[in-house]
């Protein structure tokens, strides 16, 4: 999952001005006061995640699922954890 999140952030960075680019670290904030991302950036991140999950793992993710609990999007690490748990649970 780490690779998919990394790839998606790299794709998002292609759209961001240099000074706003996200560093790929677990503690990097995605939402909240400490985050520099705007709503369109979050949509783009989500679209990249959705595409990469489909391509690499054949997993489906909907926008509503990710928005159910905004805490999932707090940092890069929490997003990774959410996705790992979600698809592990689905396997079971």
């Amino acid at each position, binding site marked *: 999952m780490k690779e998919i999140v990394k790839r998606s952030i790299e794709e998002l960075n*292609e*759209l961001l*001005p*240099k000074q706003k680019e996200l560093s790929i670290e677990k503690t990097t904030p995605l939402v909240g006061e400490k985050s520099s991302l705007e709503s*369109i950036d979050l*949509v*783009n991140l989500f*679209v990249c995640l959705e*595409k990469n999950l489909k391509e690499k793992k054949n997993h489906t993710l909907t*926008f509503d699922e990710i928005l159910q609990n905004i805490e999932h999007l707090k940092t890069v690490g929490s997003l990774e954890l959410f996705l790992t748990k979600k698809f592990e649970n689905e396997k079971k």
Partner: protein
Amino acid sequence: MKKNKVSINIISSFNHANFVSLLKNSSNFDWEVNEVNYNQVFQTLTNSNAKMWKQRSNVTLIWTTPESISSEFQKLQNKNEANSDIIKKDVDYFCSCIRSIKKYSDIVLVPNWILKQPNETSLAFAYSKGFGLEYNLSFMNYYLSEQLNKEKNLYILNSSKWLLNCGASSAYSSKLWYLTKTPFSNNFFKQVISDLSNLYESIKGLSKKLLILDLDDTLWGGIVGEVGWKNLRIGGHDHLGEAFRDFQIQIKSLKNQGIILALASKNDEITAIEAINSHPEMVLSMEDFVAHRINWEDKAKNIVDIVDELNLGLQSVVFFDDSPFERTRVRATLPEVLVPELPKDPEDYNTFLSKLRCFDKTYITDEDKIRGNLYKSESKRTKLKQQLKSLSDWIKTLDLTIIIENIKNENTPRAVQLLNKTNQMNLSTRRLNEREFNKWVQEDKNNLWTIRAADKFGDYGIVGIFSISIKDNVATLVDFILSCRVVGRYIEETMIEFLKEFCYENNVNKIKGKYKKTEKNSLCYYFFNKLKLIDSNQHSFEFSSNQKKLNLLNIKVKKPTMEKK
């Protein structure tokens, strides 16, 4: 390296925020974007006071979806019947709006229409006149190009190509559409940006000029030194042979569009040339290559030699070689040279070449069609130059004839091309589009001439332009432009002599001018410095029309009438 600034107006019927973000982060140019909110197409096009039109821009991009232009078209998406006469009127109105804002930028780009989201209609209905989406979309695009294709500096871009290259499933993003009203994916936008940059380079005369090719496993299958020319794979009833032949056909068509070809191959020269001359399936012949280096030396060195021989810059060069080693070596040694990563399978070479946009042109002049011959003559001249002792001895052997002509309609495209493409021997580096050029030339006070040259090796075509503007019996030298291919052959001195004579005959005593320094026109500085007109502190100059004549050797000069307009 500092990127060139290009100002672009963006008007679109959909959310183009991602496109703009990618454009701003792209590497070729420093894009300065001036945009209006999406879905403000007609509001912007019909408002000549809109903020966007206050300042002239380099590019205006008008990107719309078909239903945003024609509400009648929208009916088709709801499976209702549409009236193609109404659609036609809608397109007419759109075109008239585009014509009204054309004057505000150097070029206008209009991507043709594709659907904003995939919509697979019933197979039987697709081309029905009343109900078919495909029929009406094709009709709209056909009619758009009929209406706009005679407009200068306006280009209709082929959106279907981006769709095809991306594949429909990755070109569209339904998520982005429903969440942000962005119809296309970022991969799709990246293709558009790459094509846009190449197109702009081509319009500005920055596209590539010289294609240097390897031989073994690049132009033919097999290593000629090992298998002999009879066993090379070109054409015939052989899938790989056919692929190499098709690749050669496409390279030949590039040559016909003015791209010059050369060879750099590690081979025994006699063996390789015998193969080119003898193999019955070869499409390219030695005549097609203006220069070749077939030897065992470093390819990077050979490329530099070829470029020197042809008097070109390394930034004009594309190098094709199947060997990753050679590609890496050339890339590392000559970073200015474009070295595409050739596909591993030769059957993909042809498609790969067709997708490279670096040779794209927006028009082809007569000079383009015979450019290979011009450079071939150039190569012969360089070789002769090396055998002779002094430059003047060499010039004398050339039987050079120079023809100076007043600007004519048929020479305008070439003159505009020289004005916008020439960097080195260019006094003012003034850039004008054809409309601005014609407007300037038509003014009574302005005179502009073209220069043609020929010698015993061939005709160079139109190689230069120069112009003056006369006011109160003083002539100001506005343009002084000569193709770097022919610099140093006393053509530039001939231009100065003609100017003096013209001014003298018309009672204009003074000729003044100013060298405007750029990153690339030091060649022009050296020429005017050699004439003792400028130095490093003084870039403005003035000389008298009856000043002592320059030595023009034995050059024959044909001149036009000496009467000013």
